[in-house]
């Protein structure tokens, strides 16, 4: 398989190179059309340069059209995947199989900043950077599988195997400001004395042996047992050299086993599993090394961890699947509970410790939840209707953080009930005993001894208590609901999916800064209303927003929004064209329109679903995030 991808300027949010900042904060008295001609002839330089008389406004702003067309982030990916497998049948009940798969991905990223880009990013002549990363991933396994009917009722199938996963990564990066020729993006033109030269590489390897066995009784009762041992290179220099984890599971089709199949209850199955999973810590953290900066080694920025352990999760899951009315109605319920131990955290440390962070196995985190799916189909006259509702609910609790953890440097026991995972100034994610993963904390306004917001007698405005953090809520929803409906009438089919996410909060820095600049609806409303209501009294709007609307330097507690939302996530209408139009060569032609993310109801000034990063901790914050897209499409499907 070969895949080639090219991307340009793929951004989600942030301050640098974000065209949304100059657009959202653009003065209402000016006309953005004027700036569409984003570069103009500069007689002093004899070529076209950026047109943006506003300067960076302290937000690294540039002409938004310039950002899009003259600050280029180009990524090219080349990916090859080669795999082969062989299976050898030794006898009627035993076979051996082997597989090898090689996946090689070369990513090359270039950054080209044209001359007259903000001086923060480029010299007068521009800047150029290029990095190339090659990831080579090899997976191989051998499996021996035996399947044997032990007698008329019992069947045993078992697999034993071994596998190896090997990942190698090599990245190099070179670049810097251009020295003489504007917009000539080549290494030769980079100012060599100010260039960035960097390499990164790693190799991860995991070797495993595993076995599974399944015993089934008349295809009605199944018992599964698995076991696995991983030897992972990231475990080197930790307290464990391998991770062993088992699981057991059982399921039974009750309607067959107990023979109570009826027109009302047509199918019933229960299942239950207990499983353990182990994870190696992150690579490199157990062996302290000294980064070279400016050609000389420096001290490590994280506290060396010498007694790391693998993290483990134990979970129990129970499920019930029922079908009613001759399979017309289907109910699937799963409940689960999992406990994670020795989770590897990398909390931020106070600089006064001399380290910026440390790695630690800590705590006990419990997740429990329920997932329900209820579906059915029926005829409504000439219309076939089918409908399915899903509900997902998860509760997470940090039972323990660090309890009597023995400090590796002092041998003193440490107990910690709160760990900061970092954030921006007004927003922080922290792990607190008794709280949940994903809890968001925000700083707040100063209050007086009675709990009222403190208002200055002379200044007539509020003051920030920038270091006083209060819990705003959790970035995760209380529960998710989905409702899918399909209607079929003759050759027409209509599909609708409504998703609802209830609960959870998010923080909008975008809204704060727009208020501060007086370009938001909220700030206009406050001005028209003659002020902002605080403690039941009106305060002048502008000084108020100057305090709370600083964004990362402002007051987070004023910008917390419910992340609840309901949306029409998908809708499509399809029509099968009459078969007689096509004859025998074509089996069917379907035409239709489809749309995604068509309609959204939320109180937040951003799409709460999009305000999530891919990481665990920087969740529920909107910093000039790209708005989510509504897409509408047209499709034609031809079957031969």
């Amino acid at each position: 398989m070969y895949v080639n991808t090219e991307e340009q300027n793929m951004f989600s949010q942030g301050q640098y190179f974000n065209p949304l900042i100059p657009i959202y904060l653009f003065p209402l008295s000016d006309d953005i059309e004027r700036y569409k001609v984003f570069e103009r002839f500069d007689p002093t330089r004899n070529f076209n340069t950026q047109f943006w008389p506003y300067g960076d406004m302290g937000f690294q702003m540039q002409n938004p059209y310039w950002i899009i067309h003259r600050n280029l982030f180009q990524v090219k990916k080349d990916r090859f995947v080669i795999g082969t497998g062989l299976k050898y049948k030794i006898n009627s009940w035993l076979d051996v199989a082997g597989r090898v798969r090689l996946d090689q991905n070369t990513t090359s990223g270039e950054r080209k900043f044209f001359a007259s880009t903000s001086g923060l990013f480029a010299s007068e002549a521009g800047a150029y950077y290029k990095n190339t990363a090659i990831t080579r991933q090899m997976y191989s396994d051998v499996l021996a599988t035996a399947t044997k009917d032990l007698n008329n009722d019992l069947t045993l199938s078992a697999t034993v195997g071994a596998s190896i996963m090997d990942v190698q990564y090599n990245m190099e990066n070179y670049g810097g400001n251009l020295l003489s020729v504007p917009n000539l993006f080549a290494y030769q033109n980079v100012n060599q004395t100010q260039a960035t030269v960097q390499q990164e590489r790693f190799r991860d390897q995991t070797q495993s042996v595993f076995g599974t066995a399944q015993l089934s009784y008349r295809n009605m009762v199944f018992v599964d047992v698995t076991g696995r041992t991983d030897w992972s290179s990231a475990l080197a220099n930790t307290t464990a050299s391998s991770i062993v984890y088992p699981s057991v599971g059982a399921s039974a089709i009750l309607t067959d086993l107990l023979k109570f199949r009826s027109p009302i209850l047509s199918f019933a199955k229960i299942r239950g599993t207990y499983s353990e999973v182990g994870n190696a810590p992150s690579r490199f953290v157990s062996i302290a090394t000294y980064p070279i900066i400016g050609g000389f080694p420096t001290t490590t920025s994280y506290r060396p961890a010498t007694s790391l352990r693998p993290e483990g999760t134990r979970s129990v899951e129970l499920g019930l699947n029922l079908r009613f009315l001759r399979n017309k109605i289907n109910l699937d319920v799963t409940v689960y509970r999992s406990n994670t131990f020795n989770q590897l955290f990398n909390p931020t440390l106070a600089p006064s410790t001399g380290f910026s962070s440390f790695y630690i196995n800590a705590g006990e985190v419990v997740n429990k939840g329920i997932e329900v799916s209820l579906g059915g189909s029926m005829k409504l006259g000439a219309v076939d209707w089918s409908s399915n509702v899903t509900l997902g609910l998860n509760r997470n609790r940090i039972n323990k953080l660090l309890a009597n953890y023995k400090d590796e440097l002092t041998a003193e026991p440490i107990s910690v009930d709160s760990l900061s995972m970092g954030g921006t100034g007004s927003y922080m994610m922290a792990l607190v005993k008794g709280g949940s993963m994903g809890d968001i904390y925000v700083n707040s306004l100063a209050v007086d001894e009675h709990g009222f917001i403190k208002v200055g007698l002379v200044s007539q405005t509020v003051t920030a208590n920038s270091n006083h953090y209060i819990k705003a809520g959790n970035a995760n929803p209380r529960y998710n609901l989905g409702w899918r409906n399909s209607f079929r009438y003759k050759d027409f089919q209509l599909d609708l999916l409504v998703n609802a996410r209830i609960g959870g909060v998010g923080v909008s820095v975008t809204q704060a800064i727009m208020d501060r600049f007086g370009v938001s609806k909220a700030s206009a409303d406050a001005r028209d209303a003659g002020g902002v209501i605080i403690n039941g009294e009106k305060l002048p709007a502008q000084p108020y927003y100057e305090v709370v609307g600083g964004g990362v330097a402002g007051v987070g507690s004023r910008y917390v929004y419910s992340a609840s939302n309901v949306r029409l996530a998908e809708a499509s209408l399809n029509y099968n064209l009459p078969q007689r139009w096509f004859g025998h060569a074509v089996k069917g032609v379907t035409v239709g329109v489809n749309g995604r993310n068509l309609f959204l109801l939320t109180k937040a000034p951003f799409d709460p679903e999009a305000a999530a990063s891919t990481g665990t901790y920087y969740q529920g914050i909107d910093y000039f995030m790209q708005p989510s897209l509504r897409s509408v499409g047209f499709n034609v499907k031809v079957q031969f």
Partner: protein
Amino acid sequence: MKLKSTISHKILLGMAVLLLATSCTKKFKEYNTNDVNATDEMMEYDFLSTGVYFPQMQQNIFPPAQQPNFGDEVYQVLQNLAGDVFSGYMGASNNWYGNSNNTTYAFIPDWYNAGFARAYLGVMPAWLAIKKKSEFDNPHIYALAQILKAMSLHRTTDMYGPLPVSGFGSGGLSTSYDNQETVYDSLFSALNYGINTLTDYVNLYPGQRPMAKYDLVYGGDYVKWVRFANSLKLRLAMRIVDANAAKAKQMAEEAVAHPIGVMASNADNAVLASGNGINFNNPLYIICYNFDDVRMGANMESYMRGYNDPRAPFMFNRAPDGEFHGIRNGINITNKAAYTTPFSTLNVAANTPIRWMSAAEMYFLRAEGAVRGWEMNGTAQSLYETGIRTSFEQWNAGNANAYIADAVSQPAPYVDIAASGNNVSAGSNLLATTTIAWNDAASNAAKIEKIITQKWIAVYPDGQEAWSEFRRTGWPKVFPVVLNRSGGVVPTENFVRRLPFPQTEYQSNAAGVATGVAALGGPDNGNTLLWWDRTP
């Protein structure tokens, strides 16, 4: 068919063998080591671990700019948008956060965190690593680290006040703070250790420079380091004069009387320069020219213009209209462009070394000591005048005689060429009236104003030191902010007295920073006076 299955049998067997052959975990330790970094073993080659952290210590005191790693922003937020503007040296030409930022006393957490972070994540871990390796085996190496620690932490404590010093490096996740008097005591003892140990060393091994490879300031010249340590001791002694006059006198007299003594000529000046394979830019160059974020300060313009100071063109560049134009701090800037091109840029190049301390400052410190009746090896007048001459020589500004004799010129009124609302007109009580020429008949207070005013000019561009001395003495007359966005926390007439403790400490060391607030003896804001900042 038979043949095929035999082949596949063999391939399968081969794969199994391959899998088993590679199934060896011997190399796992190698895989799990980040091999672009140095390992513990390598750190012992050439005895690297004893001295290799000096570049790290030195580059975190005044963080240089290593474009394009955005390292410049560190100096910008650590010093340029703090001491450099609070001292009146420079004026900010940008309007971060809609003019609500440090310059208008609305302190930005990410900015005021920086000084603390550089000291505690940059300097102190390196100091601790050197201490562990060298304190008993190679005391001279530890002595140098002690001097650099004092250089770093006196700047840091003068920003915030109490600091975690005695508890630093003891492990744990929380570090408690010492009050500023204790911090100063520990700095004096670090300097005394450095002075005594290195003096012994240079007497035993004259001319030896074991740390030459790692020293970007003096190329390993320990005699110069002793002189530097004595000079810093004199600076710190004067700082605490209103808090502990007896100790100040003792420390100052010890420093001056030491056989190697304090800096006396510009050859003794301490500058951080590219070298030994390390290449960096002067951060002020990047901030002024790449970022376009800083210009000459309004106060500098007023003093330079009023005194017809020949040093002006060596410190600043003339604006396009041929004049020097500075920016007043704490003003409302609606359009950055109005405050960049028409105003005076700093006369600094990418490769200008970063000045740490110079001899001229020592003469002014000794002059003040002489006014206070301390034994400073010279009269106040001669030391004052030598200070001016030494500064002229440092800037290559020619003969200082006429300047020293000028008993008429006074600081000039200030005109903001972009917005007249920021002007300081003639006769305003915001303008100082002191002149240059020494007057032995004047009061001690008037003499000290003259000395501090000239020291302020000579210490440029180290705004951190100038801001500290402004807080201690009230001189020179820095123009108050026009726009005060502190919400009443820092009254304009009080000027900013300190930076708040870092937000990162509140997030991760709440118990520790609480001890800091207690030791501060007032609310943790920009209006609380430091221990040494008091009226005698």
